[in-house]
């Protein structure tokens, strides 16, 4: 059959199971947009291409499969860059399709021409420039295959306008994908599995470090079996949250810079670390020199390039987590670590609980209260998308996630402005979920325009703005490390209630703890997106905190009525 390149794009997308794309039209992608009308694909029109990439990312993280963003050449494609980098750092499967100037003009600095494959080279798992219609089907098939297999990641496909406009006799190519250098399914060797069994069986003070790989592999049942069979306490990375139930007695909580003291202490005193689908980011290790010095380390990881990158490990099991654990589990004997678990539980000094309890109800509103009460009011069942900064750390600390794929946030890149567009994508992927954005006043304003997208699409999202009038995390660093010199962190915001109303949406304001529950209920019961402006205490900080580069157990604690600043 005769097909234009533009039609081939949609034919291929439909073969990949794509039902929705997030995008923004423009000159060089116009032929593709024109063809789109004839295909059963939902298009969500964002207000800025960065929003398209974040929405596609949120869609993927919420479990929708590969997210697709589409944009025009030049500024359309460069606007995707932050979103692509965000997805890359957090291993999120994305296919970004961009228009490119006609192939004859490439290299001539044509209007809206930019070398987007060059620009995105270091932030894509792979990328393509298509200048021949005969390559188009193969390239799109490879793009989806690469994006979703192995360690997932973003793939960009830049398609010259003339390729979209040319026609050819076309059949879908069903032949196996041929990528001789691509190895998405590595497997550990038998002797490595045997060695792992020995090490696990010999451990007296083991700790599991669970990361986003658990969610990407869908290895939640296997992880749980490992934990329970070997009676090993679990520390979570930020992006691992949801991979193991927060309410499980062996779940210690989040590790790292803003992890509970007890979690970091357990890691530092462990004799064996089982790093499962995590990559020893500097925000979880602190000073590498002092990191878990007594522990032997086993790294369960699908990406061989992650092994020995930051932390030298004693054994690496390179492969899909679920598969590796399924192979390993039958050989493991049940362990009893009652003494160690008791010891770890004694470390639990409830910093976070103390944080809430020590806050007098003096009429002011604390972020900890907001998120804790939001968790209670939503019965822990919300799909929470947090932004970046204090709001993110408080969310990780106070919203207890028991289910996978219910917490979405930008971890590796730490992209402010991620939450709202990502929540749009998450809501599109899971229309029945109670989707909540938790964002600071700073980050929210970065992509606030996407409120308009939510309104146009009739999406029901609830937005909690943790409004403290500062770029809070930066202000906190200035308070701790820069003698309270608040350079460029005080921020005046618009009236967020009116902003919501200007979009035809509902805006609420909360200034007292007693109002939180009612506001949450009202938001849930109101049709359409609701924004709640929580006016919280301006100079509150996230505790505990390990200063950047310090050893994991050297932390700044919440000043309590008795102790101002205590370090151990």
């Amino acid at each position, binding site marked *: 059959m005769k097909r234009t390149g533009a039609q081939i794009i949609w034919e291929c997308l439909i073969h990949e199971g794509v039902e929705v794309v997030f995008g923004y039209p423009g000159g060089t992608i116009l032929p593709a947009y024109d063809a789109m009308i004839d295909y059963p694909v939902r298009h969500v029109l964002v207000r800025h291409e960065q929003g398209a990439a974040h929405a596609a990312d949120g869609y993927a993280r919420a479990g929708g499969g590969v997210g697709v963003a589409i944009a025009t050449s030049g500024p359309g494609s460069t606007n995707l860059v932050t979103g692509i980098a965000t997805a890359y750092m957090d291993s999120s499967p994305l296919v970004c399709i961009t228009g490119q100037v006609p192939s004859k003009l490439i290299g001539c600095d044509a209007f809206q021409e930019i070398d987007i494959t*060059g620009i995105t*080279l270091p932030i894509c*798992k792979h990328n393509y420039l298509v200048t021949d219609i005969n390559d188009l089907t193969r390239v799109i098939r490879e793009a989806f295959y690469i994006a979703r297999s192995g360690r997932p990641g973003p793939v960009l496909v830049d398609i010259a306008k003339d390729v979209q406009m040319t026609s050819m006799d076309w059949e879908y190519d069903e032949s196996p994908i041929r990528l*001789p250098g*691509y*190895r998405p*399914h590595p497997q550990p060797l038998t002797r490595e599995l045997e060695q792992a069994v020995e090490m696990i069986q010999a451990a007296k003070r083991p700790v599991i470090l669970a990361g986003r790989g658990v969610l990407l592999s869908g290895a939640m049942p296997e992880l749980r079996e490992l934990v329970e069979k070997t009676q090993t306490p679990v520390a979570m990375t930020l992006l691992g949250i949801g991979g193991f139930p927060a309410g499980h007695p062996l779940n210690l909580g989040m590790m790292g810079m803003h992890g509970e003291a007890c979690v970091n202490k357990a890691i530092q005193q462990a004799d064996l670390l089982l790093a499962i689908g995590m990559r020893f980011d500097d925000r979880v290790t602190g000073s590498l020199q002092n990191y878990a010095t007594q522990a032997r380390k086993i790294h369960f990881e699908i*990406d061989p*390039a992650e092994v*020995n990158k930051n932390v030298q490990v004693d054994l690496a099991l390179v492969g899909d987590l679920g598969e590796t654990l399924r192979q390993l589990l039958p050989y493991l004997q049940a362990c009893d670590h009652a003494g160690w678990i008791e010891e770890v539980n004694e470390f639990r000094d409830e910093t976070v609980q103390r944080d809430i309890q020590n806050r007098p109800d003096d009429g002011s509103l604390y972020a900890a209260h907001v998120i804790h009460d939001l968790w209670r009011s939503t019965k822990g069942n919300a799909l929470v998308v947090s932004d970046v900064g204090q709001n993110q750390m408080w969310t990780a600390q106070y919203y207890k996630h028991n289910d996978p794929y219910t917490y979405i946030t930008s971890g590796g890149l730490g992209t402010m402005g991620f939450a709202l567009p990502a929540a749009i994508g998450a809501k599109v992927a899971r229309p029945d979920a109670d989707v909540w954005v938790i964002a600071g006043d700073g980050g929210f304003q970065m992509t606030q325009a996407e409120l308009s997208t939510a309104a146009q699409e009739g999406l029901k999202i609830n937005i909690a703005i943790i409004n403290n009038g500062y770029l809070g995390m930066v202000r906190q660093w200035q308070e701790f490390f820069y003698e309270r010199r608040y350079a460029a962190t005080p921020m005046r915001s618009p009236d967020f209630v009116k902003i919501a109303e200007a979009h035809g949406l509902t805006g609420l304001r909360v200034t007292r703890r007693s109002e939180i529950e009612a506001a949450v209920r009202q938001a849930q019961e109101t049709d359409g997106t609701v924004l709640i402006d929580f006016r919280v205490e301006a100079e509150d900080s996230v505790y505990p905190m390990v200063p950047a580069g310090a050893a994991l157990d050297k932390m700044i604690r919440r000043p309590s009525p008795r102790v101002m600043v205590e370090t151990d």
Partner: protein
Amino acid sequence: MQHTLVALVEDRPGVINRIASLFRRRAFNIQSITAGPTEQPGVSRITIVIDSTETNAERVMANLLNQVYVIQVADLAQVPSVRRDLALVKVSASPDSRSLIMQLVEVYRARIVDVNTESLVVEITGNEDKIDNFVDVLKPFGIQEMVRTGVVAMARGSGPMPRINGNGNGNGNGNGHKQSYAEA
């Protein structure tokens, strides 16, 4: 310590750029990089020399293998190998010095490939030490211009390129999509 890595890559547009970009992004220092065709159509061979005291060779290999277009990587430090560099040296040659230079060319088994009234162009192949040494010897005559190709290398013995087990976990085993060099 010098470490020589050999990568077989699909001959696609931008593949050298991808590898150069990878090295830059990961802050891997390279001493030389050369690329050229192989006996297989569509497959190029890249030889990379790194200083392994500064840059961890296993990390370089693991990152190279993560590139979609990199088919295979071998670490030639692990096996006996032949290493060759080629240099063209344009050296000043007066009537007095000419015969002296020609004697040195003879000793080093180099070749004179261009003769001029003022200068000679000498071609020499060999390992880097031999070439370094030869260049030092020519220096007193006055080197007008020099170019070196960078090292290419090959494992000794018969059979195709040795398979690597990067990062100590036998990772080359892959799956159906992975093809060995011989099958590629």
